[in-house]
Structures are given as structure tokens and as C-alpha cells.
């Protein structure tokens, strides 16, 4: 009986591990993933970085052009996040169980949000590219739709955290819907909401790079251009600029978070 307990536990572990390893190997062969090549690539990529993937003096000439595109990318991220957050807030208010007007509207808003975030941003980008072409609006709108979906879910969670008690307290003292939203729900969840907005701006700068490659806008476009023309020094300069920008924005938003949370 007592030895049973240990051997049962051990066998469960062994079988679980075995199944998992077999599954991994099968997936690796199905996708033609080569582990040794993957591991070897770290050495290769490291050597390649040292030998040719660094900004040299010639590439510095391109810095002004890169900075202009960086500005476009950052603004695309900020504008899409800000506007998406306004829409998301309305949808979250009608979607959250705490503040919903009725359950039908709640399901509809949750559904729309889920639809917009689960359709891959690539698909949005492609469909927008057809009519908006290589303008900044393509990237902006694609980011907007995906951000809207994500933020609605995040805001709903933040609002749900407020809970029913403060809402009931206000209802009991005769507050109407707008009193409840503006006096209880928003003040209590605003810090969280802003924290999510800042997080999304950080994320969107990275996503904007990807969208840029697809839609030919912003800094992603420049990276793609240099990369495809084998101008690796300039491409690496783009990476450096992105890293610095992301660090700066992360620093700023962490600073704001410390103040408000």
C-alpha cells in the first residue's frame, strides 16, 4: 500500500514525460524543426552579428531617415492605442458584469471585442492595404482594431475587479448609472486602465514594426528595405534605434506606473 503510493506517483510522472517527449519529437519532425541547427544558429548568429551586423559609420548617414520613420511608428502606436482605448472603455463598460446595461448588450460587446482581437492583425493589415495602400493609416487602423479587442478584455477584467459592493453602495444611496460609473467604477479602476494603455503602447511599437514590414510603413519598412538589399549595417542601426526607443518608453511608463499604482 505504502510503496504503491510512491510507484504510482513515479509512474504518472514518467508516463507524462514520455508522452510529452514523443509529442515534441513528432511535432518537430512534422514542422521540420531541426534542434541541432536551431542551437547551432545561436553561435552562427552571434558570429554574424560581430562580423557584419553592427552599425558602421557609413550607415550613420541614414540615421535622420530612420528617426523620421521611428517617429511615424511611435505615433502610430500612441494614436492607435489612445483611440482604441476610448472605444474599448465603452465596450468594457457595457461588457463587464459589474456595469453592464443588460446581458444582451454585454454579450454583443464581448463578441465584437473577441472577434476583433482574434482575427490576426495580419489579416486586418492585408485587407486595409487593398484600399488604404502604403499610407500611415493602414498601420494605424490595423493596430487600432487589434488593440481595441485586447484592451476591451483587459478593461473588463479591471472593472470586474472593482466588484459589486461599491456599485451596490451607490445604488443603495440612490445613484443612477452615470453616478455609479463616474463616482465608483472609473475612479477605482482608472489606474489599472492607464497601466494597460501604457503596456499596449509598448507592445504596439513592436507590433508596428511587424506591420510596417507587411504594409510598407514606418520603421518596419526601412528595416525590410535594408535587410532585403543586404545592407546589414543600416538594418542593425534600425534595431538599435528600436531597442533604445522601447527602453525609453518602458522607462517612462514604469515611472508613470509607480506614480499611479
Amino acid at each position, binding site marked *: 500500500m*505504502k*510503496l504503491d*503510493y*510512491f510507484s504510482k506517483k513515479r509512474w504518472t510522472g514518467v508516463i507524462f514525460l514520455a508522452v510529452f517527449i514523443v509529442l515534441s519529437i513528432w511535432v518537430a519532425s512534422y514542422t521540420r524543426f531541426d534542434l541541432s541547427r536551431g542551437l547551432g544558429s545561436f553561435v552562427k548568429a552571434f558570429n554574424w552579428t560581430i562580423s557584419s551586423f553592427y552599425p558602421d559609420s557609413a550607415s550613420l548617414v541614414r540615421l535622420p531617415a530612420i528617426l523620421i520613420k521611428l517617429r511615424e511608428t511611435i505615433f502610430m502606436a500612441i494614436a492607435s492605442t489612445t483611440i482604441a482605448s476610448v472605444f474599448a472603455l465603452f465596450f468594457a463598460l457595457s461588457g463587464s458584469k459589474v456595469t453592464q446595461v443588460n446581458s444582451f448588450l454585454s454579450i454583443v460587446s464581448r463578441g465584437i471585442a473577441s472577434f476583433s482581437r482574434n482575427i490576426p492583425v495580419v489579416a486586418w493589415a492585408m485587407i486595409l492595404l487593398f484600399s488604404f495602400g502604403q499610407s500611415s493609416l493602414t498601420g494605424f487602423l490595423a493596430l487600432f482594431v487589434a488593440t481595441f479587442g485586447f484592451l476591451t478584455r483587459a478593461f473588463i477584467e479591471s472593472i470586474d475587479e472593482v466588484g459589486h459592493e461599491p456599485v451596490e453602495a451607490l445604488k443603495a444611496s440612490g445613484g443612477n448609472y452615470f453616478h455609479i460609473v463616474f463616482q465608483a467604477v472609473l475612479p477605482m479602476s482608472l489606474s489599472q486602465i492607464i497601466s494597460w494603455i501604457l503596456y499596449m503602447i509598448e507592445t504596439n511599437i513592436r507590433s508596428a514594426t511587424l506591420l510596417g514590414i507587411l504594409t510598407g510603413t514606418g520603421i518596419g519598412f526601412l528595416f525590410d528595405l535594408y535587410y532585403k538589399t543586404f545592407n546589414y549595417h543600416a538594418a542593425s542601426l534600425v534595431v538599435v534605434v528600436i531597442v533604445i526607443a522601447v527602453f525609453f518608453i518602458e522607462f517612462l511608463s514604469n515611472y508613470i506606473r509607480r506614480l499611479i499604482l
Partner: protein
Amino acid sequence: MNPLLTINSLKKQYDEETVALNGVSFSVHEGEFVSIIGPSGAGKSTLLRCINRIIDATEGEILFDGLNVGNQNKGQLRKLRTKIGMIFQHYNLVNRLSVIENVLHGRLGYKNTFNGSLGLFTAQEKKQAFQIIEILGLEKQAYKRCDQLSGGQKQRVGIARALIQEPRMMLCDEPIASLDPNASKIIMDHLKNITTQMGITCLVNLHQVNVALKYSDRIIGIKHGLKVYDGPPKSITKNQIYDIYESEAGELILELKDQNEA
């Protein structure tokens, strides 16, 4: 007979302001049951943690069974720690594991990294674990997860984990501070039995002076990192206790025999 544990002018300084121990010396003989009493922040926990080097002392010397604790290298220290069991106020069990698994943790010091990490214990060790569990009256709980136990049961698991180490000494840091009177009595009785029947030396930090007086062979009083009393419970006076706790007479709830009144 040589003492089992000797502490010579032990000092521990955490940072510039906090000197937790300021030169404490005493020795403990095999088979003694010693209680350490003193107010909060006196340095009792610090003292126990220095003995098995959970924290390093700043100055001074600790000899355990003739070995200088401060000089041991990593491997030697692990071996030495197996000879010193430790139990805690908050039990410090892995809550998601079963009682028997927690008890077997006491054997980790004897095992190599591989067997210990994977929890591969020998049949002999498992048998021993069940014997100890039975002695402590936990046989019904053996396969229960520790987060389903009462405080008193958890502390008994803690004792079992220490006992399976086959220690020569037990360090107990406020073992009954979170327990009700009934459970406290059970735990203290077990600890006392461990000393009298198995010959394991016990060094117990206690906040309950009455309990200390009732169970101990010897009392050590600590205040502001200094030893202020060391002697049998029989000869300690009310005033000495008031002095240790820096309180006015009558503020403490004490039951001393008349002969101890001074």
C-alpha cells in the same frame, strides 16, 4: 563529559544599526532540554539560525560535537546540518506535497543531488518515515496534503521531518506560538519525550514562560543580544523574569512556586 554544543562570544550584526547578538556564550550537554526566553527582538531566532549556519555569525565560535561550525565547507556543512534538526513557528512545510513526502525531506541531506531532487528514497527510509509518523500519531494523515492539516498536525510533521534526520540536537524556534493550548501540550510533550527517550538534545525558543519553566532542564534568558540568565528553572525568580522582559511586576502572568519568590 564534553558539551555537545559550545558557543563562544557569538556576535551577529545585520547592518550598521542592528546588532542582534552581542557576545553570547554558553554550552549545552547531550540530553539537555534548554529553553531560551526573552522579549521580541532579543535575538533568539538569530541565535538558533547561527548554530546551523542558516545565517553566518559576524564574530565568535560555535562548536558542535567538536567541529567548528564556521570552518565547514559546503559539503561538510550539509553533513553537519543533518545532525541538527530544526522546527519552526510556521512549520515551513511544502503545502502542496503530502505528509509522507514532507517527512522524507528530512533525508535530503543524506542523498546526492540526483536522487534527492527526484525524491528517490530507499525502502528503508520510507519505512523509517512511517514509523516516525506513527510515533507522532499521524498515520491517518500520511497521504494527505499538508495544507489540509491542522496547526498541531503540521507541527508534528515538522517534528517528524527533523527526527528522520537522526539528529543529535533539535533547534525549535517558537514551536507552539501559533497553536492552541491542547496542541501546544501535545507538541511540548513530544519534544520532551524526544529528549528523555531518544537522548536528543533540545534547544527551544519560547515565549510562554510557564511552559519553559515546566519542561526545561535549564533556562537561558536573552535580552538585547546578551545573555542575562542561565540556570535551572527552579532557581529563577520572579524579579529575574521581570527583568528579562523589562516589565513591571504584575504585568506578566506567571505561576511560580513560592520558593522562587524573592
